[in-house]
């Protein structure tokens, strides 16, 4: 029998039928029984990552989540607040700030008016800051939400809320839920990939863990140094020829054992080893940008500083989406500008603005934007008031955490671009209209992928858990 045939998930029935004795029939019966069941595959021989059709019509097939860790300042980037000039350097009237809960500063802290210059961009006339000249060229593709709110005002809980729907650690993340619901179309790559740049994040691996779902659904980190995936490269002494020799004999021996023990878990493990080998074989091609046109490389800023690391990740994200990766998460840290906010924002925008805009344009020119949902978001926003840690130093002012009204944006994959959703009050203290909670954003993302967020559930500890906990409403206005 052809080994490769055996290993191909598609042809596994043929294998089971052709097996000697009753064992093949056992496995076949098991397989048929599992396929007879509606919904999620139960039998271990069924690859849990097999691509599935979502229950509702879906625009987005893939997600690229541009996570801007640390909470970028909305009023210096997305949400102009000229009225702050009036109060600059002074406390706001106590009547406006009495219920404000802040992390470091007190509600009496002096207001810090933004020094950024805002202009209207695109046909839609979206107002954006001078820190985002490249993103501004994509204004008509972007749906800017200025009315986000969260109840977490510290990083780790805020990141947990954004990715798991709960401020407590332990639940599955957005990427894991996506993979659980949709499986993956990537043949030789993990279905949920994490790319990092900048410093480490507060959430660490909590931001892409599978929580109480099997680790099959966890995000796989593509590393910046060493192996792109941990243990992807053969160790010293193991050449490709040796690796193939090892895998061939392993396959044979495991298959022998499968014949004896009739446990489909063994067939499943053989499949995993082959997938591992294909991941090894295909990663050099994935990471090889030599076939990208100079124009593309230039557009992203792959070959220059300071854009290089983030541009590389953005380009990789596009290449992964092309190869069927379901969920690509870019974690960039950190936007936590408690001090020297102008310098900090200039630096982070200098790194990310051009690659992000290139990603949108590149996806669009390849016809991928319609099926790829791109989300740009931090875990919350920043205060209109200044945080001054060293009063004696000039330009030391920063901003504190502020979850009551901040901005994120989304594009592609079922999102209606060229519009602004919601607004904050004239001082940016809270949402004035069109409140969008983190759970609402999650519900909307899942809707783009073809799910009713209340129905994508996993039974655990006596309860059907879901990403949006017991909340969440789809923001219909964001959708096409």
């Amino acid at each position, binding site marked *: 029998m052809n080994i490769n045939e055996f290993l191909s998930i598609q042809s596994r029935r043929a294998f089971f039928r052709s097996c000697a004795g009753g064992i093949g029939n056992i496995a076949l019966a098991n397989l048929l029984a599992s396929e007879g069941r509606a919904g999620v595959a139960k039998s271990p021989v069924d690859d849990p990552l097999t691509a599935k059709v979502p229950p509702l019509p879906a625009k987005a097939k893939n997600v690229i989540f541009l996570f801007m860790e640390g909470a970028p300042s909305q009023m210096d980037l997305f949400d102009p607040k000229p009225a702050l000039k009036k109060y600059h350097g002074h406390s706001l009237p106590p009547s406006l700030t009495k219920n404000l809960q802040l992390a470091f500063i007190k509600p009496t802290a002096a207001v810090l008016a933004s020094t950024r210059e805002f202009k209207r961009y695109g046909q839609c006339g979206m107002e954006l800051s001078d820190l985002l000249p490249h993103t501004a060229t994509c204004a008509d593709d972007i749906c800017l939400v200025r009315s986000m709110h969260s109840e977490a005002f510290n990083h*780790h809980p805020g990141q947990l809320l954004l990715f798991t729907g709960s401020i407590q650690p332990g639940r599955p993340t957005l990427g894991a839920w996506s993979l659980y619901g949709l499986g993956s179309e990537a043949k030789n790559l993990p279905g949920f990939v994490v790319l*990092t740049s900048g410093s480490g994040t507060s959430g660490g691996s909590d931001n892409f863990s599978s929580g109480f779902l099997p680790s099959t659904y966890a995000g796989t980190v593509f590393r910046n140094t060493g192996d792109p995936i941990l243990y992807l490269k053969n160790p010293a002494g193991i*050449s490709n020829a040796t690796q193939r020799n090892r895998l061939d*004999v392993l396959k044979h021996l495991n298959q*022998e054992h499968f014949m004896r023990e009739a446990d489909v878990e063994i067939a499943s493990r053989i499949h995993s080893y082959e997938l591992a080998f294909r991941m*090894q074989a295909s990663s050099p091609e994935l990471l090889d940008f030599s076939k990208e046109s100079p124009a593309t490389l230039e557009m992203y800023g792959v070959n220059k500083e300071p854009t290089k690391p983030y541009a590389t990740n953005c380009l990789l994200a596009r290449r992964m989406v092309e190869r069927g990766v379901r969920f690509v998460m870019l974690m960039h840290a950190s936007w936590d500008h408690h001090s020297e906010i102008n310098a900090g924002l200039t630096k982070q925008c200098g790194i990310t603005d051009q690659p992000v805009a290139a990603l949108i344009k590149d996806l669009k020119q390849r016809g991928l934007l319609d099926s790829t949902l791109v989300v740009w978001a931090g875990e919350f926003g920043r205060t209109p008031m200044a945080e*001054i840690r060293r009063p004696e130093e000039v330009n030391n002012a920063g901003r504190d955490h502020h979850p009551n009204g901040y901005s994120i944006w989304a594009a592609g994959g079922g999102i209606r671009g060229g519009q602004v959703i919601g607004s904050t009050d004239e001082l940016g203290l809270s949402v004035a209209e069109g409140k969008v909670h983190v759970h609402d954003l999650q519900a909307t993302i899942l809707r783009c992928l073809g799910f009713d967020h209340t129905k994508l559930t996993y039974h655990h500890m006596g309860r059907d858990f879901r990403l949006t906990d017991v909340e969440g409403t789809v923001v219909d206005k964001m959708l096409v």
Partner: protein
Amino acid sequence: MVLKIVRYSKFAAFLFALASLPVFAQLPPAAERPIDFAKDIQPIFAQNCYGCHGPQMQTSGLRLDDGASALKGGNSGAVIQPGKSAESALVLRIAGAPNMMAMPPGKKLSPEQVGVIRAWIDQGAKWPASETKVAEAPRRGASHWSFQPLHKPEPPAVRDAAWVRNPVDAFVLARLEREGIAPSPEASKPTLLRRLSLDLIGLPPTPAEIAGFVNDNRPDAYERQVNRLLASPHYGEKWARYWLDLAHYGDSDGYEKDWIRPSAWRYREWVINALNSDMPFDEFTIDQLAGDLLPHPTIEQRVATGFHRNTLTNREGGVDNEQFRFENVIARASTTGLVWMGLTVGCAQCHDHKFDPTTQKDFYSLAAFFDNVEETDIDAPMPGEIGPWLETHDEYRRKRQALLDEYHVPELQKEWEAKMIDAGDHPGKYTDWDLAWDVLLKLTVGGDGEKIIRKKPEARTQREQDALTDHFITYYFYAVGDAKNKEVKFKELAEKLNKLRDSYPHLTQALTLTESKEPHKSYLRLRGNYKNLGIEVHPGTPEFLGPQPAENPTRMDLARWLVSSKNPLTARVTVNRFWQELFGTGIVKTSDDFGMQGDRPTHPQLLDWLASEFIENGWSMKKVQKIIVMSATYRQTSTGRPDLESKDPANTLLARQTRIRLPAELIRDEALAVSGLLSPKIGGPSVRPFQPDGVSELGYGAGVKWKESEGEDRYRRGLYIHFQRTTPYPLLANFDAPRGDVTVCARLRSDTPLQALNLLNDPVFLEAARAFAYRVRSEAPGDFESRLRYAYQLAVDRNPTATEHARLEQFFEKQKSIFDKEPKSVDALASAGAPDRVNEAAWVTLSSVLLNLDEFITRE
């Protein structure tokens, strides 16, 4: 180590907020006529409210069919204010006032009905005694199986009595005979010993042990093996892991800072020792939940309370400490409910449990047992530490004080303390000192910074004073800036102090719980929000599980009640987890849910029999585990059977054993054991084996460098690997080890390509393969066949089949021809200067193949 702040003034503010409900102008007017309760009001209540607030259910604690209860109110307090209808929550809710959940859900009372109720309240809310319905209906879940008292059933009669080795088998076989299914034959002796060994001590048997067992023809040969393994000091290591999953043990704080907890292992040490000495489970329970409340508790009994110190600590700047204190209270209640009662009581944090009879009040009454605990670190010396410490301690104190004096710490600290308290009392007054104050609340090591600084120096313990002084020296710069900090040279001082401390003997520390001396009130939190205080609650066990254990029960009463005959759950839940460890799945499959949404037991009588045996045997864990592994049921083969695939594909009837992929730690242990690398050392601090760069750096605590252990500590069992919660060791994460955030009652067993890459390419496993090859070549005679046989015996405790032999020989030859062309590969794998280096390198790869076999990482 964790900070705890109780802000009574804040509580008072919330209570005040509760008392003043929003004024809602658009209320329908009150009816202008005298109201008759029986005629006008009761029918409205009966039709619209009794479903959730009647005899069977009292959602949110509110009951409207009984006058006394109705006037008392629900979880948020009184809902009827006689004479003041516009201020009555009941009226506001039925009228749909903003920001309140409108009642009744899904329908709306007419303005006339609201007006009638308003009038009744305005007229004094008179409730005639004759109209009170106190007919008690059985509470939801009253007849649920797991809440029924435990009775020991008689083992049933079976036709094939010869198969029955002990009563376990009678229960299993009776069911199989009913279904017309024959049990599977007993597994071969090598398979049996491998299974038993992996299950009881988590290590594979050696070829010598296998040979000894195979050649032992005495009738009690198997029992001798069981006894040997139960007495092994490695038993505690294997079973500690299952308990640590429940305790959600970790070596770091979790959350952003994710600081290392250098003393966490002291609790793990206690667990290993308790299990090895077969501490009865009732004592095991009492020590962990309330060891500090025993009369004159020993250090070990206090260390045991570290069970509830595995909660996470959020030291992130700016977090509200009261919030995370509350979260830990909640976590402790949820964990206790889950671990001992198998109930998802945590679901009742926000509302009454949707399926189980656990009300929100039940949950907060359980939480109240933990609302008054303090986190206290203690000296918990290991054997041999006290003598040297005593001898040198005075000298150490003198030298430390001299250093502090030299750098003017006493006077600077006094000044700093005064201004810190001023800053703490007047937030916003000194914006730079605000941060220093926040840091004091979060980052004081070994104490509660605020509590200490507010004590007069003479009232502080030595430990408290040291904690504050160390904090002052480390974080002075937050208050005064870098320039001034440089001037006083505190960085230099800190280095000298650390060096001094490290050069003197020290006592191992332990994280424990104690009861606070200043009791404070506990409240139900509406919708689970810590800021949203409801009615006051008192410590209490769930009402549906019978009367309270004592008049004003304490944490000790809770612990004793959990292991008393009054609680039907603990013994059932616990033996079910033993069964799960030994069969892959529990008799109750949902070992995390014995409530109404959980699975029913497949063998209810067997479960009750085992639970009763457990108690009758003085809660001996080893004794009940021995009963299980002695059974014929346990000894069956795990091979799949065509007839079972249609009748019982999930093996719930137990007509065979189950193949179980080993947990993460045991995969490592096995690879190290068969290759001869494993260090047999038991206990002690956590270790850091080799880990590639870039793993720890993913977390915010990237400053927490992974400093690889040295010597034999690189080859310790997986149980001892340092568990950094936000960036766990890759092998553990890849093979489904829990993340240590919450209790895990049953590990998942996934199968992923990353696992394959881990075993194929992780240098730790390649090193094991090299050692394995070396061992095979030095311990077995020269020819390929005998070496292969020895390698198979080491790895999977059997001989290779003819096909396996032929296939591996083919592999070996091919590998040698590959290496003939790859001298560099040979250099990397073979030892320098060996005469047959190609041969040796080929053996390394062959060994690595064996360490990757599905059979190798599976217990059959």
